């Protein structure tokens, strides 16, 4: 019995971000495991719309009172939308990590990037071994 959930249908990076592909686009956020480790989030530094990043590159920073962590791209692409609400309510990432807590929407530049990521089962195992 763990303190976090892993959502099905999402893919996960080793650095604890999730990505949900929607055709040529994708939504990106941090996993429930990540928000649990960080505890109450107080701040997020969002990227600019139009900026492009490659897989593994940091595009933003999340902060709680006891930690600050880079948020990295699970796959390469261009930022086409950011969840600006998170600036006033960063706790949404704690409350609903996979839904309302989405951070950015990107246009995928190389959908094959997702093949290198973990599925829900693999990520669950990865979280359990670190706990």
């Amino acid at each position, binding site marked *: 019995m763990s303190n976090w959930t892993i959502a099905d249908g999402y893919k996960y990076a080793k650095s604890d971000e999730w990505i949900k592909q929607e055709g040529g686009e994708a939504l990106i956020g941090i996993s429930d495991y990540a928000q649990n480790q960080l505890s*109450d989030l*107080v*701040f997020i530094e969002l990227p600019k719309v139009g900026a492009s990043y490659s897989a593994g590159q940091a595009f933003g920073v999340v*902060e*709680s*009172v*006891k930690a600050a962590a880079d948020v990295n791209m699970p796959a390469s692409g261009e930022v086409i939308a950011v969840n600006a609400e998170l600036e006033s309510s*960063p706790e949404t990432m704690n409350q609903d990590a996979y839904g309302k807590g989405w951070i950015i929407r990107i246009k995928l530049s190389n959908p094959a990037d997702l093949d290198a990521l973990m599925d829900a089962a693999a990520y669950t195992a990865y979280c359990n071994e670190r706990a």
Partner: protein
Amino acid sequence: MKEPLIYDLGSPGRNGVLMPQPDVPLAKIPKDMMRDDLDLPEVSEIDVVRHFTRLSQLNYGIDKGFYPLGSCTMKYNPRLNEDMARLPGFAAIHPYQNTETVQGALELMFHVQEWLAELGGFAGVSLQPAAGAHGEFSGILMMRAYHLDRGDTKRTKILIPDSAHGTNPASTTMSGLQAVEIPSDARGNVDLDKLKAACDDTVVGLMITNPNTLGLFEEHILEVVKLVHDCGGLVYGDGANFNALMGIVRPGDLGFDVMHYNLHKTFSTPHGGGGPGSGPVGVAERLLPFLPGPIVGVVQEPQSEDDMPDFGFVMPEKSIGRVKAFHGNFGMFVRAYAYMLVYGGEGLRRVSEMAVLNANYIRARIRGVYPVPHDRINMHEFVCEGRFADAPDIHALDIAKRLMDYSFHPPTNYFPLIVHEALMIEPTETESKETLDSFAEAMLAIAREAHEQPSLLKEAPHTAPIGRLDEVLAAKQLALCCRPIPIPENA
């Protein structure tokens, strides 16, 4: 009873300290250059005294009780040192006065340089850095400069154990170098195999704290130093834990090339609520030319046997440069020198012996109850886990807050990062056996409470001036200033 902000005390037009009327003709004041308002308090002197007296009473200090903060060396701050630092001949001299008029100050600095060099086993010392982190930064810059001076531009990495204080990697980044983490082994030492694998010709050096932040003396320190030297790198010693080593071993003798000292830890200068400190650096022969300067040296030898040399400032020929304006935190040199004189060489060894004795004693008294991950002879501090297998809801934080109800300052929490729920306990040598016993008893009582009445811990502190504070709120709704700020004229 909450103490109001000073701005909420007093009343308009009230004066504090009065200054004399000008005794010279008044010069013209160009009105367009002058400010319209000066938003400072309007209180009388008694208001100021009461306000800060009442504020002070909300604080815990070493003067009040035991303060076992690991890595901070909260030893007694001798008041003799405070009086000496305030002697007019030290307190009222200007840093740019002609050196002829401040030979006493320069001589004092020279002696402090010599004492530190002798204690650490180094060829020379600069007193300029203002704090430990400042000394670290200077040390890394020196190592970097040393390699560049040899024409070696390949080296960009600093190896740092995972148990290191955060200032180590932070100082590395400021120097434009890359921090590479080296794991610790199961006994709490630097993992020799991993270190060996990381040592190559791209390494500037290793930063190592010995004893380390687990309070353990590196069991293979000579091999560690050799591995780094063999690949052409230098060894930097973080001297935060020097309180364990005086008269016991000299890092210079072990092969360390550079080390910083913390006068506000080992040498009893007071912490003052966060500072000031002083972080001199000592170096081996090959790094002497690179010291941050100027440093104090003999600029004229004595003319006869009974004479004193003339002291002055000397800039090391390949100095990394100045790291601070003026000469360093001189007031802390006076305090440290008074401290050194009162102990002498043998006395400082006794300081380290008793510091190490005290730490081992507490460990011996609480180890059965608090898990000690590295349960072997430690140095001046040790780390235990603030958690119990059969009381999983209790965290180190809860134990720390409950200690306040027992009138103790908590030990360092959550550091080093490599121990879960870490509690780092450093008693220092100025604590008596009675104090140590009463602390051990409090820790054991709290462990019992953790099992029998956990709410006492979860809701602690109960007797402090204020309860647990909402740090999330503080970070989300930043309130860092209580005065309205005027808009810029050209906004």
